[in-house]
């Protein structure tokens, strides 16, 4: 019992530690520069006739679940006034972001596309106002609001008025069944 426990604990610790490597990789400068924007990753469930959801944009890998990117995204979420409409995920002028309901898809590249292109009924287009790296960082953070991201990469709270339950403890909001089909 003892040796088995020991080895499994060691293995666990090692896995946990190894996962850390890219989880906190910091990139001060986004890999792709310039004005390229994420392609609108739009599946059938959002825009009929567009076909199945394309595979995840390869650029997303550097941001999805990356603690440094999420932290930058959290800062930009306030700086760029996302919080002015969506607040801490509960919504207001903008839709709620913590409820797992996605009109235009909840995958990181879909969120990035929504940020860049804007969406009907008031979501501004941020093309040219944010760099692409910032867009991805924001998208990475937005996904944490509904618990889509690994818990060890997110921040429990910010130094502000207490608001939502800590994101390190939020349950992953299930995507709508049609959305999850796509994933």
């Amino acid at each position: 019992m003892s040796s088995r426990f020991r080895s499994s604990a060691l293995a666990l610790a090692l896995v946990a530690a190894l996962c850390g490597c890219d989880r906190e990789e910091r990139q001060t400068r986004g890999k792709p520069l310039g004005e390229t924007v994420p392609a609108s990753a739009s599946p059938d469930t959002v825009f009929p006739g567009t076909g199945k959801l394309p595979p995840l944009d390869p650029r997303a890998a550097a941001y999805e679940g990356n603690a440094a990117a999420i932290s930058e995204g959290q800062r930009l979420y306030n700086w760029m006034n996302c919080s002015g409409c969506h607040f801490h995920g509960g919504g207001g002028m903008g839709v709620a972001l913590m409820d797992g309901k996605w009109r235009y898809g909840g995958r990181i590249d879909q969120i990035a596309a929504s940020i860049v292109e804007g969406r009907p009924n008031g979501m501004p287009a941020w093309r040219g106002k944010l760099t692409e790296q910032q867009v991805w960082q924001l998208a990475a953070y937005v996904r944490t609001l509904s618990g889509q991201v690994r818990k060890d990469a997110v921040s429990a709270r910010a130094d502000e008025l207490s608001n939502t339950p800590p994101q390190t403890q939020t349950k992953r909001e299930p995507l709508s069944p049609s959305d999850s089909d796509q994933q």
Partner: protein
Amino acid sequence: MTPAERAKQPPAKVPRDGPDLTGPELHEKLEATWENPPGFIGWLSSVDHKDIGRRYIVTALVFLALAGALAIAMRLQLSKPDNDLIGAARYNEIFTMHGTTMMFLFAVPVMQGMQVYLTPLMLGTRNTAFPRLNAFSYWMYLAGGALLWVAFVLNIGPDMGWFAYPPLSGPQYGVGKRVDMWAQMITFTEVAALAAAVSLVATILKQKAPGMGLARMPIFVWATLVTSLMVIFSMPSVALASGMLLSDRLVGTQFYNPVERGDALLWQHLFWFFGHPEVYIIFLPATGFVSEIVATFSRRTIVGYPIVVMSLVATGILAFGLWVHHMFATGLPRIGYSFYTAASMSVSIPTGLQIFCWIATLWEGRPRLQVPLLYVIGFIFTFVIGGLTGVMIAAVPLDLQLHDTYFIVAHFHYVLIGGAVFPLLGAITYWYPKATGRLMSDRLGKISFWMIFLGFQLAFFPMHIAGINGMPRRVYTYPAGMGLELPNLLSTIGSLVVAVAVLLFVINLVVSLRSGRKAEPNPWDAASLEWATSCAPPKYNFPHLPIVDSRTPLWDAGEKLPVVHGLRVEDREVLLTTVMSAKPDLREPSAEPSPWPFIAALATSAMFISSIFSPWAVVFGTVPVAVALTAWFWPKSPKPEREPVIS
């Protein structure tokens, strides 16, 4: 059983040491009783304070080497202005790791290791009071250090400074799990340090050799007692602080969130309430080394034993009243500052008295300029500079300028390297034969001493000037043209000299292990009890426990040291004495080797590390810990009868 009934019982037929059981026969029996079980498991199971102390010291020296390598990396980065050898983020990780490792994984553990190794020997007993707790302590320390360094290697090491001030270390600005790794490492080392301290205090109070009343204890034992009590009183403060930080970071509590009426300064108070005593936790054992070395190499009892002891105690108490001098720039009420200025300055009085006593001892004695004493002389020359700059920064108007500059970096390296590492190196040279049976090379020792001493001055004295010329701490670069180029270049050169010197010291350590001159039981003609047994001591330390009637038993009683008879030889047994005057009190069984402290440490580590990721680990992690502890404490044999000691 009433005492009357017990008196009627025939005396138990257990073999005991005594005039009739001595020499090789006794050695054989005791060796069999106190030997570790065979094999790797046996190695893990050891509860021998010498094993544990040695492991502590070796591990701490490894951490010293690692942290020293980081220091060299920093010095290379700072060797010229606008250097880009190391990036900003990496540099921040490096200085954080350097400070953290030096403070938590080297300085405190190495001192505790020395204490664990030496205290039972100096007290004339066979093991510490809680041997398994002692073993547990080491494994926890090792796990904590491994956690931090594995994290660093995997690029999730801390990057917010060894002081981890929130909000920078808080959930918003301390990105990812870097800070958690640091904070949980604190928990590990706190548990380790507390376990060792508790064990040491109990050992000192209850296991002194008969006759060794408090007033006859070696000064190093006094230093150990004071620092262990300081550990017990100060460490909970930082454990609490880091626990709250972890909780802020993991479950979103608001302890350090100023918006929600938490307070960023709460951390600083709690941290420095530990952090300032910690300096003395490192420094006081070093003064213990110095007192022992000075006495031995002056061939004279220490002048002013009561003054030195009272200084230790006074420093230990005053150390708890100074923490605010780390916070003069935080804008606390001015009236309070004056108090802390006065308190901070007054702590130099006991230290000044100790220095007087050492110099007076040298003056009164006949000093032998061997390597350990050289380190002590180097210590006084260096440490006093650090102490005097300490007096400067106790003054608020000076501190507000000097605080957080390279002047401070210079100051505390003078205090900690000059004040603790120099004595430590002297102490290692001094007690090396006691641990290995061989003496270190004198020639190599002298070369490395002079290189370390001079290299140190070259590395750190210019930092005073860099600080005064406006160089703040913890900067990865500095602009040209501010008068910082020369001091930094000199510092870098000095640091390289020190590195080479330390390497020489390590070579000396390793080489002497095989080829050093074999040591007599008392190669330095010292006076305290650890020199009454062979070099290296047997597993059971002393064939017969010694009896003491002076502060310098080996000088006063010589070869005719009186001993205790009547302890069991087939069971592990130690003699308990009374706290104040060390009258024989009880015989007490001493714990057998056991793998369970190691397993308990593993279980605790698993709980601690998983609780970085999930608060539920605190709940579920207790199960394996409870299992391990149950096995650890499972009673194996019927309670041994208590008998009065026949001496």
